[in-house]
Every structure is written in C-alpha cells, then in structure tokens.
C-alpha cells in the first residue's frame, strides 16, 4: 500500500459532475501519471462538499486548501504550482465577498464556519465507493457495538435519549417510532429508507447517498436489529442514477465484508437491503404512499392509523425513516446520546441539513445546529443576498412551507418555531427571495407544484388546490377582486383542515403565509392593478415619455411585436393593446425615456 503524501479530494456529486468534475479527475490522473507522482498523490472521488455555488471543488490535503470553480484547464497549474512547488494557486481560492481576501483553508470560509456536520460528516471527505474509507472513519463501529454490547431495547433507549426527530418533514421522535415497530408483533418486519426526496431544490438525501451511502446502510441494519427486521428496502427515485449506483456498490461491498447478509459479525443477526425505485412523484415521500408504490400500487396515501409501524409494507410492521435521519444514527451511537442532545434546542436536538437556494450568494448544502437563526444561515453562511439586493422573504420546508419575512430572521430554527411562524421544517429546503420577487406569483408558483403533485385522491387537495391556483392566477393577471383574498383564506383553511395527507394539509401554507405577511402586495394587485415587484406582466405598463424621447427608433426597431410607432426624430408611442411587456424597449432605450409603471 502506498504512503501518499498528498490527497486531492475532488467532488464527484451530481452537481459537480455536471460541471465537468469527471474531466478534472481524468486530467489530474494523466498529469500525475505524466509527472510520475502515482505513489505520492492520491485522487479521491468524494461526495458533495455542499458549497455547490462554487463547484467543482478540489480540496488538497494535508493543508486543506480549498479550490473553487475549478475547470479541467486549471489542473496543470494546480499540479505544477501547488503539488510540485508547494505554492497555492491564489486565483482559484475562495474570495470573501466582504473583505475581498482569498481564503485558503475551508475552515476559514464563512460558508463552513457555523456548520456542524453530523449527517454530512463524510460527504466530501471520503470516497463513497470504498467501504474501507468509511470503516476508517468509525464506519460500522456503531453496528458492531450494538450487536456485541447492547440489546435492541438499550439501543432504542439511546436513540430516544438523543432526542433525534425525523428529518423528512414530520419530526416524529425516531426512537419512539422504532420502539412502536419493535413492539408490533409479526413474523416479518421491514426497515424502509425513504429516499424519495421530492422538494424542488432540496438535495441533502441525494448528497448523503452519493457521498456516504454506508452511513445509511449501517443505520438501517441497526434499525433492523432494534425492531426485529431482517429486510431493508431503500425507496429511491429513479432520477437519482448516481445515488443508485453508489448504493448498489455500497450494498455489494457491505455484503462482501459480512456487514450485510446472514450472521452479521457472528452475532446471529441477519439483515439485507434491496432497492426499490420510484418514478419521482412528490407524494410518494409520504410514507403510506411510498409503501403503496413499493407494493406496485398507485402511489397515493391511505388514512392513518394504521401507521406503518403497525401495518406497513405488505401489511407488516414497517419502520420508515428518511435518509438524513438514518445518517445521524451511527454517530449518535458512537458518541452517545448525551453528546448529541447537547446540540440544538430544547425540543429539537442535533443538526439539520438545509438546501440553500434562491437569491443568495452561497447556494449549497449546509448543516447547522438546531437553533441557528435564519439570519445566521442567510447572511453568515449564505453570504447574504445576491447582487446587493434587499432581503424580502425566505421560504422554508419545500413547496408547502410558508414564506417568512425579515421579522422572523432572528427566529432560532427548529421544528416548533417554524410551525409557530406559519411555516415548517419540511425536509430542509430554504429558498431566499429578494425585493424583485412578487409574493403573489411566488404563492401561485408553489401551488402549481402541489397541484401537479397532488395524487388526486381527496377532494380538498385535488379540486381545492386547483381553485386556489386559479384565483392566484387571476390576481396576477390583474383580474382579481378584493373578495378573492378572503376566498383564498377560507379555501386554504379548509384544504389544510380537511385534506387526507400532509401534502394537502400543508399545500396552502405559501398562500396563507404570503397573505399574512404581504397582504399589501395582494391589495396592490387587486385594488390598484399594480404588481409592486414588477413581476406580473399583465399589470405592467411600458410608456414613452414624450419629452425624453429623441425619436432614435431603437425601441421601434427592437420591438418584437411591432407595438411601437413613431416618425424618426419624433416622440414614439407604445400601443398597449399590442405590447407583450417583454421589456426589450425598456432595456434598449438610451435616454431613459421609457417608463415602467
């Protein structure tokens, strides 16, 4: 075995792969070969580093140098300068947007400073396709400890004491769920990993599976030991081909190492894992819908109780946990419940992974302790709002979360605070909006998503969301009336109150929260026919100020629909009945003669 002096950690998660990280790896491979450094430098294909805004990322160990936005053309310079001569390539370092300083060590980057990585502990650090790297980082130690030292009851007790709650959205205490499933008597039980990550923009589950698949497999085996199941199933969407590949590799390796299969670690414990593919329906993240989909039935939820813990897959007790929840388990058992439950808030322990997106400088995947404020996430980690714009709102919890205002920026993030604020934790989507976003349009946009993803089983969700969307659409087209706002409120509350599953029970959140926090914007639409953010095209009006127009004809020549008329050197005129509000004239005019109202 070689004793490498340097390691190049190169992200090969889906995001960085799409930005040619595979070419970077190939290029480094041939350069290392060319320079005869095969025994000195090791290339490690890692999972996601989280800082996707700056990908592809190449990290050099042992000095922790963090190169961002690396392209295949940069590899030669990194090799010649950094690896051969030991000189950092300054132009590829992360530049702090405030101090303008280049930061070499990732630990010094604002994005990482406030993060504590438990679920993501190995992502961006190990080669997910090599089980030994996972084992070297205490992998499968928790499973070994459980099998050798702890009874299932003791293990469950430890999980309960840790205070871990489900990370998929519901926030149900994980230990309690395991206990209920353990107590359900049956000849067969199942452990199911919910990897049907459906929130648009959220990709923590995918990253964990791509970057550290064994952490989930190990946790599933521990869960199987605790509840008395010998079979595990990962329900994963088929759109995650890389995660599927890495899971398959990991399962194969775990079997080869005797960590899955019969008589694991000689403890007479049998457990194996299979994959089940989903077709990408959002509602299949709901556990009963997920189970029906696995059974080959239409992916739609059924009434609970019975809960899956009592009657789940094939009518047998089934413990369903989300990927991120599982990823926490081995660490909790290795470091102890008392280590874990000191992180976080009173009722929400540990950390949470968020997918930061929207109008924010540092788009990416972050993991912070529960209780971190939205301000810390958005400004310290997220680097603030893009292009120096004003923060307007942050939407948490995926498409059915609520939109919170700056008044909530100092709210410590945990399950209960977010619900109290009119939003939710969900699976950890976090979308930041700036002054240019119209909140009515945002509500309509989210409704469009839930409308398409509704399974259609219950009336409030099937028809109610459609009607909500129609009313919102009407308002953004300038055809709304003030009564529509009340109609939205009443209908939203009924949909929340009467829907069958979590999808319908939360789908009106964006509507209710935008009305609660931005009612003036709604009123501007329906009363004044104006969209304050200038997003609703139907409410925009481009006009030419006669006194400023020089008759240069630039707008006339660029108008794609011939809505502008006028003689050369004479003021021009926009025919509102033809104008499609594309804004080309506004952009082209050199004399600021075109106004937007």
């Amino acid at each position: 075995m070689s004793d490498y002096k340097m390691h190049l950690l190169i992200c090969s998660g889906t995001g960085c792969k799409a930005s040619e990280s595979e070419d970077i790896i190939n290029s480094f491979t041939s350069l290392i070969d060319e320079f005869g450094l095969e025994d000195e430098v090791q290339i490690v294909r890692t999972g996601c580093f989280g800082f996707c805004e700056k990908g592809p990322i190449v990290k050099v160990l042992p000095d922790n140098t963090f190169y961002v936005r690396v392209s295949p053309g940069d590899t030669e310079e990194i090799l010649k300068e950094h690896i051969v001569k030991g000189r950092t390539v300054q132009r590829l370092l992360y530049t702090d947007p405030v101090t303008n300083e280049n930061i070499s060590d990732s630990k010094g980057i604002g994005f990482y400073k406030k993060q504590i990585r438990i679920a993501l502990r190995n992502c961006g650090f190990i080669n997910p396709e090599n089980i030994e790297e996972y084992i070297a980082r205490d992998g499968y130690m928790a499973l070994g400890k459980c099998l050798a030292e702890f009874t299932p009851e003791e293990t469950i007790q430890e999980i309960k004491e840790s205070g871990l709650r489900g990370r998929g959205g519901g926030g149900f205490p994980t230990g309690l769920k395991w206990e209920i499933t353990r107590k359900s008597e049956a000849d067969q039980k199942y452990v199911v990993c919910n990897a049907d990550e459906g929130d648009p923009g959220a990709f923590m589950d995918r990253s964990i599976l791509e970057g550290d698949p064994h952490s989930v497999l190990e946790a599933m085996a521990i869960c199987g030991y605790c509840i008395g199941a010998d079979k595990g199933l990962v329900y994963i969407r088929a759109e995650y081909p890389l995660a599927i590949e890495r899971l398959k590799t990991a399962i194969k390796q775990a079997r080869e190492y005797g960590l899955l299969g019969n008589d694991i670690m000689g403890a007479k414990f049998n457990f194996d894992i299979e994959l089940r593919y989903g077709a990408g329906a959002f509602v299949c993240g709901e556990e009963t819908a997920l189970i029906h989909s696995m059974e080959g039935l239409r992916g739609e939820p059924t009434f609970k109780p019975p809960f899956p813990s009592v009657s789940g897959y094939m009518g047998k007790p089934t413990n369903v946990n989300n990927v991120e929840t599982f990823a926490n388990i081995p660490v909790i058992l290795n470091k102890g419940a008392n280590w874990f439950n000191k992180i976080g808030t009173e009722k929400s322990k540990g950390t949470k992974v968020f997918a930061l997106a929207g109008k924010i400088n540092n788009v990416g995947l972050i993991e912070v302790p529960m209780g971190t404020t939205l301000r810390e996430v958005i400004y310290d980690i997220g680097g603030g709002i893009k292009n120096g714009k004003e923060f307007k709102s942050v939407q948490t919890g995926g498409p059915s979360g609520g939109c919170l205002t700056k008044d909530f920026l100092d709210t410590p993030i945990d399950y209960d605070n977010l619900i109290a604020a009119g939003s939710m934790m969900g699976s950890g989507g976090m979308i930041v909006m700036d002054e240019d976003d119209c909140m009515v349009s945002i509500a309509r946009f989210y409704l469009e998503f839930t409308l398409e993803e509704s399974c259609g089983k219950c009336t409030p969700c099937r028809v109610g969301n459609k009607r909500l969307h129609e009313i919102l659409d009407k308002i953004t087209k300038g055809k709304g009336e003030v009564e529509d706002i009340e109609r939205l409120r009443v209908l939203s509350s009924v949909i929340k109150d009467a829907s069958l599953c979590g999808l319908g029970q939360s789908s009106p959140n964006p509507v209710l929260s935008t009305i609660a926090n931005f009612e003036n914007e709604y009123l501007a639409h329906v009363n004044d026919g104006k969209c304050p953010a200038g997003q609703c095209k139907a409410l925009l009006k481009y006009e030419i100020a006669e006194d400023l127009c020089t008759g240069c004809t630039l707008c006339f020549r660029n108008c794609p629909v011939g809505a502008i008329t006028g003689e050369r050197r004479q003021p021009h005129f926009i025919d509102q009945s033809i104008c499609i509000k594309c804004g080309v004239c506004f952009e082209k005019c050199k004399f600021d003669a075109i106004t937007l109202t």
Partner: protein
Amino acid sequence: MDTINLTIDNKSIVVKNGTTILEAASGIGVHVPTLCHMKLHDLNIENKPGGCRVCVVEVEGRRNLAPACCTEVAEGMVVNTHSIRAINARRTVMELILSDHPADCLICAKSGNCELQDMAHQLGIREIHYQGEQSHYREDTSPAIIREVDKCIMCRRCEMMCNEVQTVGVLSAINRGFNSVVSPAFEMNLDHSVCTYCGQCVAVCPTGALTEVDETGNVIRALSDPSKTVIVQTAPAVRAALGEEFGMEAGTLVTGKLVASLKQLGFDYVFDTDFAADLTIMEEGTELLNRLSKHLSGDKDVKLPILTSCCPAWVKFFEHQFPEMKDIPSTARSPQQMFGSIAKTYFADKLGINREDLVVVSIMPCVAKKYECGREEFKTNDNPDVDYALTTRELAALIKISNIDFRTLPNETFDNPLGESTGAAVIFGTTGGVIEAAVRTAYEIHTKKELPRIDFAELRGMEGIRKATIDFDGFPLKIGIAHGLGNARKLLEDIQAGKSEFHAIEIMSCPGGCIGGGGQPYHHGNAEVLKKRQMAIYQEDKNKVIRKSHENPYIIELYEEFLGEPMSEKAHHLLHTEYFDRTE
C-alpha cells in the same frame, strides 16, 4: 379495553373498540353524511378510501378534522359533527366537488337516483363559491355500459368493486391531481378491455358517471311497429326488485303487476325467462349427470367439476382470464339465450311467422345481458335470438314513460307456452339457486327416486364461497358455490392447481347473484335490500305448485314436440354454445 366511552354531539355513549366515528354516531341517530364510503354488510364489501372528505367531523384536541368513516373512536374522545368548522369544511368540500361536475341534473340518467344530488340538497348548497375549470373526457360507450367520465367524483367505489370484489382490474385511478379520474388503463375503451360487463361499477356509482346503455327507445319503436310481433321474457330476479322503483318495500314480490305492466305496454306475449331456466336445468342437469356417470365409470378425461354457465359476465371473465379452462363450464346457453333460441324457432313456427318479424325483448337484472344478446354465436343470418335486453331500471323507466300507475295494477299471469315455470326456475335469481334447481332434477333422474326434501338450506346464504355435500343415494355429490368474480377466481385457481374437491360449481358474477345484478334498482349501499330480495325469491319458490324443472308440463311438451330429449342433436344446436379464448 373492549369498550370505549366517548361523546358525540354532547351525547355520551359506549361503543365497542374498533368502531368508527361514523358507526358510533349512527347508533345514536346522528347521520354524518358520506359520499365515497359504502359498506355492504355480510358481503364483506367496503369502500373506505377516506377520499371525498364529506364526512369530516371535529374532534377535540385534534389538529385537523377527522373523516368519520375511517377514524376509529378512542377513549374520552369528544366529537362534534356539526360544529361550524365541520359544517363549513363539509360544505366547501361539496362545493369543490360540484365545481368540477357538470350541472346537467335535469337531463342526467341518474337524476333522482344520484347520491351527489341528494348530498348537495342535504347540505343545502345554494351557491358554488369556487368556480373554475371543469374536467372533460370523452364519453366511452360499450355494448353494455356507458362511461360519462366528466361526472366521476373519484369516490373509487367502482374501482374497489372491479379490483377487490371482482378481481377484473379494468377500472383504476389514472393521472394525477386535478386530472385524476377512474378509467381503464391508458384510457382505452371498455370494449377493448377485459371488462366482463358485470355492471357492479354501475350498481355502486353514486353519480351518472357509469350507467347502462339505454335501449328503451328501441323497444318503444318495436312496440309501435305493426309489422312486428313483440314478445318479452322477464328474468326471475326482476320480480323481486322492480317494486322498489315505485316506492315499494324492498323484497316485495310484484310478479303479477310486472306481467300486467308488460301487457299494458303492448307486448304481444308476456313470457317468463323462468321457463327457459327450467329448460336450462334439463340441459345442464343432464350434462352434469353425463359427466358424472363417465367419471364414475372410470373415464379419466372427463372434465369435472362442471361449472354453470348462466351468467354472461362470468362467461366473459373466464374467456379472458382462464381460457385454458374453457372446456370445463357447461355448454348450456344462459336462460335468456335459450329463451331467444326457442322463441325464434319453436314459437315463431307456432305463430307461422319469420324470425325477422318476431322481436324478443328481455327484462334482466343485468347489464351484461345486453352484451350477451349481441354475441355473434347467438345470431342467425345476423338476426339475434334476443333483440333487446332491458335492465330492471329501464323497464321502470318505460312504465313511467307510458303513464302506467304500477302500484294499482292488478295481478296478471304469464302467457303460454313459454310462460309456465317451476319453483326451481325462480331461484335462479339468487346465489345458490341454479345449483339447488339442478340438484332437484339431477337427483331424481340419477336416483330414479323422489326427493325426500325440496329445500336445500345448505346451499343458501350470502357467504361468498359456500360448499355442501348432497347425498345422491349413497354417492356424495360435492357442490361449490361462488358469487362475486373474486370468489369465483379462488375456486378456478383451485381447479387449475388440481385441488378442487367439487363435482359441480355454481358461479354468479354479482354479489348475491342476480338479485344484486348491475341492472337492478340501486341499493345505495344497503345490503339489507339484497337480503330482502333473496327472501322474496325463496318465497316465490315456495308459492309454486311445481318446484322441480323436469315436472314443468310445457317443458315436457317442448321436448316431445320439438327437441326430442335433453342433449339431443337439436337441443345441442339450439341450446348449447361454445366459448372463445379472448386473451388476444
């Protein structure tokens, strides 16, 4: 804990553990409205998707409203079924359903019989506050069933019947969200699917989304054509249900009024399918005895058990699902088709007219009969043996159109020669009846002894699968009975696996047999209706002077004058049929 204490609408009650709020409430006279929910007691049929959300009630301490139909009671639960929150949600849900439903009640086939209409009325909906886009789908017309999918409200009852009860698997929810609808796969037409036309989807549809093909116009035209002789046959189950359409108690026998109404409608002869049922017993019973005696003499190739073949949906079911077993059912045609065949030969000869000038109408509890009479093998020179099959419901409509006051009609009797029947024939209308009728005749022919008893209680009842052993003078004849195609499937799979213990099996597609047919007055989820019809059928049997098919004098005359003997070549040609592999 076996019992639960709870409060519903301020009344304290004690109910059994496992009771739903809906059941508990109904016990104290609180009828929470339901739409998708349907439970047929004793038949093990329940539709409980919790989808419509009309039955939501407020439960103290619960975050959201609870669907009464699937929420089980819990100790100390405090339920309010008519709080403003519950009423508001229920009415809003109803308005949402109506906002995506065509408002053509005045001309809808289901008007007056529509559960959605009733519910809108009950909830006092006077305005729909949430108007918007409505779903539009193309209408699907098959030989028996029409799907007007725009009227589907996604209650999923038809889907449950088609999949869980009948195991036919044609209807299921497709698409997502607002576009969700119940349909055959890939929105194919019913007549391209493996649909058996059993009509159980029609029987449970709360709206006008599923109805039968309406043939009343054709019958009115035939009746007004002076060049045609129009005769009618009525199936046994019709007389036990038709009265319901005129406000009479379920289970009221209306045989005499039925005959009188048909005469008043202008049919030239009013005959009885029961006559053909007696004929069926002669053929099918003989076939059973033939196979049995071959079996007893050691013939290894003989096919046993023999399966009844009266039910057209059942026939189509095995043609699609078990084509390799198509030589097991009896080759005897159904009573409807035996009647048509005899009418257009024997009876047309008697009248001295061509078959083309004789129009045969049948009144059936069934929608599959519409499909059956159109099958090519039941036509001669393109002229069908049975021209039109009307459901019990269509007959009621015809009576109403023709200004007949059904309730005040006198009792009249069937015409001869095709109107005389025995008690054995009338019990064809319920599950277990065909095989009981066959036993009555086969026993006497086989043993050459008189039956010691006529009623076989062991063959009766409502369980989905029943079995009985009848002592045939020392030989134990093992009989199986299944109603509902899902139950039939179980018996067929046993035969396939070589595990079947039976010599003869009766199969009816519809739960309860023909009394529960897809063409009967709507039971609206009340299984008591089926039981009362069943009791009426057995009462009619008791009322009959002759109760064994082979003793029907007109049947004896038919064989003497025309057919020769059961299974003769002529009988074979006119009264038997063949089956087709429909898997392609």
